[in-house]
């Protein structure tokens, strides 16, 4: 059954001040209503003045998403009555948005067309204390710049919707105009329909994991209705993140009567081709370009180049370490070990205890044979879980690789203890050596290098034979 999905994504732009006033945008760690002024409180007589940076960031995003950037744009008032909007309307863009007709490509070259992108102001934040008969309002978020990205209905599975959101996050983070790790910095609404059914608009999706879950739920719900010969109504539904289901939202039809009209307090914005080109020239390297360059420049695999460019932090981490340690080794240790351990802990590199100096230290010790691969993995885990510097950890935890003569002693001890396995090996049962290597590894708690151990064992056992 054909599934059709289109998304409306809202992302907060990383300006210092709000879209139409000089209040700060760092509302997350603040007491309520401490970043406001007459403009973002909607007090009578106050006038909005547009933030230059927001236009620049919006244009950068538009260019990175391959949109046509408007040479002239305008703001409109979208009227609706809800307490998160103190003015009774939201300033947004309507028929003359910042950018149109863009596209991005997902993996496997799937093209997702972008219908339009536009700037608008974030509403305030409502708090609904449990069992209270009132709502509380915090206007710190009111007026934070949002970029809305509207796609054409080009996605055909929840996984694809998720990939699209990840791609948007990745792209905007590379531009340094967005930080997806901030709670609520990306929100989305999804339109989804199945062949032969009406379209549901799902609101309140706040993560790409959430998007995948909400859409999967909708597919099941709509399929079941169609299978039983029932009608899938065209309606708006609310995603309940804690229960991972969508619910029908009761709404009056007038709510959609937004009565858009031009914002008389904001003049037209003109962007000359020159201005657009100068922004274009300053665009940093985007993930796709970086991926290609990594592949050309370093001896790494396609998969490694892909994982290393999923975030700017990670790409820089890899590239700076590669200046000091072999890039191929670095790529392997970053993608296989470090990223795996971070994913397992649900941490991101920037919020973890790992840093470049520590990682370089580990890779250098490994290169010099002072620690084993197993030891290196243990040190990485220790740093992620408890912090600390590898130098200290190696000392404290005794992760130093075992020296050759000490290893000889241990091997002899193991051979004495396991005469049966030794005999098996001499009789020609070659896999018996694996058992002996395992015994040495467990005796040394992984501080011996398996390859060295095997070589030494083979040499000694050959002597037995003769």
């Amino acid at each position, binding site marked *: 059954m054909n599934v059709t999905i289109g998304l409306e994504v809202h992302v907060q732009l990383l*300006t*210092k*001040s709000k879209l139409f006033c*000089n*209040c*700060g945008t760092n509302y997350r760690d603040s*007491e*309520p*209503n*401490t*970043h*406001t*002024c*007459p403009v973002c*409180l909607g*007090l009578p007589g106050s006038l909005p*003045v*547009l*933030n*230059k*940076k*927001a*236009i620049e960031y919006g244009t950068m995003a538009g260019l990175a998403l391959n949109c046509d950037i408007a040479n002239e744009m*305008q703001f409109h008032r979208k*009227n609706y*009555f*809800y*307490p998160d909007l103190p003015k009774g309307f939201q300033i947004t863009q309507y028929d003359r948005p910042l950018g149109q007709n863009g596209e991005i490509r997902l993996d496997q070259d799937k093209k997702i067309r972008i219908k339009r992108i536009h700037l608008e102001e974030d509403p305030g934040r*409502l*708090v*609904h204390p449990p069992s*209270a*008969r*009132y*709502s*509380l*309002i*915090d*206007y710190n978020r009111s007026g934070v710049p949002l970029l809305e990205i509207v796609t054409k209905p080009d996605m055909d599975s929840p996984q694809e919707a998720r990939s699209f959101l990840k791609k948007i996050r990745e792209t905007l983070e590379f531009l340094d105009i967005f930080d997806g790790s901030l709670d609520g910095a990306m929100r989305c609404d999804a339109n989804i329909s199945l062949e032969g059914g009406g379209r549901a608009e799902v609101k309140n999706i706040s993560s790409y994991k959430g998007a995948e879950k909400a859409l999967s739920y909708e597919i099941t719900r709509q399929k079941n209705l169609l299978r039983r010969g029932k009608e899938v109504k065209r309606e708006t539904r609310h995603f309940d993140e804690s229960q991972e289901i969508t619910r029908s939202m009761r709404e009056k039809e*007038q709510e959609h*009567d937004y*009565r858009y009209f*031009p914002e*008389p307090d*904001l*003049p*037209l*914005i*003109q962007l000359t081709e020159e201005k657009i080109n100068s922004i274009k020239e300053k665009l940093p390297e985007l993930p796709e370009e970086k991926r290609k360059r990594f592949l050309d420049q370093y001896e790494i695999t396609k998969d490694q180049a892909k994982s290393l460019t999923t975030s700017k932090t990670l790409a820089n981490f890899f590239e700076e370490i590669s200046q000091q340690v072999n890039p191929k080794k670095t790529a392997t240790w970053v993608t296989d070990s470090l990223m795996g351990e971070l994913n397992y802990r649900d941490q991101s590199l920037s919020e973890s205890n790992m840093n470049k100096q520590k990682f370089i230290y580990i890779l250098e010790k490994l290169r010099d044979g002072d620690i084993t691969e197993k030891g290196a993995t243990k040190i990485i885990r220790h740093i992620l879980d408890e912090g600390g510097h590898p130098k200290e950890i190696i000392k404290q935890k005794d992760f130093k690789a075992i020296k050759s003569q000490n290893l000889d002693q241990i091997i002899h001890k193991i051979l004495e203890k396991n005469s049966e396995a030794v005999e098996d090996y001499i009789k020609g049962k070659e896999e018996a050596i694996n058992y002996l290597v395992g015994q040495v590894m467990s005796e040394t708690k992984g501080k011996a290098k398996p390859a060295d151990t095997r070589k030494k064992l083979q040499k000694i056992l050959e002597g037995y034979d003769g």
Partner: protein
Amino acid sequence: MDKETIEKVANLSKLAVEEGELSDFKDELLNILDYFDKLDEANTENVPPTSHVMEIINKMREDEVEKELDNESALKNSSNPQEGYFKGPKVRD
């Protein structure tokens, strides 16, 4: 203009209109609409739409944080503050 239209407009404007006032509103609204008909008589064929009377463009400001209101001042006009928030009727169930 029918009753439903007047009620809808009143509703969107958050105005409580009593049954007895409907016909007065109807007359007033029709007057306004008549005026729009008058405006329609003007020939605007080659005139681009105007959304601003003043011909200014690109009036923008730098991205800088300036003085903000403290919590007390922000809530000063509120008849119903609570714990630093504006308090209002419950808007979601």
